[in-house]
């Protein structure tokens, strides 16, 4: 903060308050124009390099997924698409049993996202609508603490609970432990607090109960938040690895992420072309969701630290 004061010192204040510094006009000084064009060019070059470097692993993976096995070992590495696309994707599909895996991943991702939305809507409503009830803060903080803990921290007790309930290797184990969401509760609570109390009073006078008020008035107002939360939770669940690995034992309950491990571990010499085909299948759904709803995604990144 001290730095701020120093920089904004007396000179700066005077200038910016009374007489904005004369900006060089575009056409006024040719030298400046050239300099600007040059720096624009350098920026573009730097950014393009950065984008290429960042994208390279995935793009190369996509290319390899179209090549025949022997193309992998060409020197120098071949950077153009090959002719084995169909064979690779078919092999990956067969080897990792992709069909059921994709179905499972979709089921658990959608179910978890919906479950989280419903539960956090209800919890947030309770916290915002019933302004005072006993132990409110305690409840709130408990929700916060419990669900800001990363999964690995509570994995042993949670797994033991699944054993006790007999849920191991079932959809219950893959979804229900994820249902409670601090992120969602916070998001909706914050939004509900901005709804003027007069609205709920009016609803009460008209004879609408709390639940009806939630469903008929607050729910339609929250659609944007619901969509954002759905997306974040879908991607989050789709990408889960550790929990499905532990809690499923049979082939039929595996998810797509584990399919990647199956492909990688399948052979002594990694068949990267087949593995990459599997990787592409696994990464496309979340990538589509994120790219289609990019702006919402950026906004909801701050929620994406979800545990």
């Amino acid at each position: 903060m001290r730095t701020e004061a120093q920089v904004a010192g007396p000179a700066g204040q005077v200038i910016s308050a009374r007489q904005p510094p004369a900006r060089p006009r575009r056409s006024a000084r040719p030298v400046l124009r050239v300099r600007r064009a040059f720096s624009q060019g350098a920026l573009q070059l730097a950014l393009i390099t950065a984008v290429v470097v960042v994208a390279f692993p995935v793009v190369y993976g996509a290319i390899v997924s179209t090549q025949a096995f022997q193309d992998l070992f060409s020197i120098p590495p071949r950077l153009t698409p090959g002719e084995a696309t169909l064979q690779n994707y078919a092999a990956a599909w067969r080897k990792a049993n992709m069909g059921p895996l994709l179905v499972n991943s979709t089921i658990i991702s959608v179910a978890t996202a919906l479950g989280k939305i419903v539960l956090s809507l209800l919890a947030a409503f309770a916290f915002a609508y019933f302004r005072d009830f006993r132990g409110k803060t305690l409840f709130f903080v408990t929700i916060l603490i419990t669900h800001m803990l990363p999964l690995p921290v509570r994995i042993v007790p949670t797994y033991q609970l699944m054993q006790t309930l007999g849920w191991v290797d079932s959809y219950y184990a893959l979804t229900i432990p994820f249902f409670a969401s601090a992120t969602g509760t916070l998001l909706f609570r914050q939004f509900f607090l901005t709804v003027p109390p007069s609205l709920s009073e009016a609803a009460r006078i008209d004879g609408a109960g709390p639940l009806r008020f939630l469903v008929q008035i607050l729910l339609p107002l929250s659609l944007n938040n619901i969509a954002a939360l759905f997306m974040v939770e879908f991607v989050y669940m789709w990408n889960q690895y550790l929990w499905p690995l532990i809690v499923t034992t049979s082939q039929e309950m595996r998810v797509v992420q584990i399919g990647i491990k199956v492909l990688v571990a399948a052979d002594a010499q990694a068949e990267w072309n087949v593995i990459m085909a599997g990787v592409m299948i696994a990464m496309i759904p979340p990538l589509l969701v994120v790219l289609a709803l990019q702006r919402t995604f950026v906004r909801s990144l701050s929620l994406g630290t979800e545990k």
Partner: protein
Amino acid sequence: MLPSLVVVAIFLIVPSVEALMQSLRLVDPFTGRGIFVGLSNFQELLASAEYRHSILVSVVFAGLATVLGLAVSLGLALLVSQPVWGAGTYRTALLWPYALSPAVAGAIWGLVFDPSAGPVTYALYGLTGVRLNWMVDGNLALGVVTLAAVWKMLGYNIVFFLAGLQAIPPDLLEAASVDGASAWKRFWAVRFPLLSPVTFFLLIMNTLQAFFENFGLIDVLTQGGPARATDILVYKLYRDGFVNVQWGLASAQSLALFVMVAVLTVLQFRYAGRRVFYS
């Protein structure tokens, strides 16, 4: 003031008490009953050279991934924040790896660094004449895992740094510029200090991420090897608990992790404040 005090107190006290209570017990794997065993869980854990090694690996990994990741993302965020043509497109183009899963990242980086088929291996061979076998040398394997982790978090970090940069009033930079500060100096004297809350927040989030969310990456890429060189704490917990079925050891590790998260979370709330977190 009061709410933040309450949160700090509760984040500090409740987890500590809870962790302490649980750490004094040993859960019997067959009956599921807890027995009071005092501090022996922790003693056993701290006495284990393997566990200490795992702590070291985690700290090195998380430290490298966080520092390197923040430096690169800040640089990229500065580039994208310039009035550059197509800035929005560049932003998206740098963001999307964040949507990929750790397992996907693991497989892709395994390919890129494959000892025989990997283009990076080939390029380095061309440049230096050395053919590296990344997955056999412990330090190299840890390096690859770190790079992959940095890469995956780029998008996340850039979004927050950009938000931080955009919140800096342009007047300040203009004033500094009028006072004759060079671009380099403007960065260190104006932008960097004003970014410190964001940086701190990201420091904590990246550390947590490195510690806890890279299991899939490591399981696909190295399985904690070679010779346990990438055996981070979560991976060891998985091995002890779910592969070797040593519940007592795994529970104690769970609790140790719990304490680490509690400390990081308290630091987060204490110094970065809740504003950055929930806004």
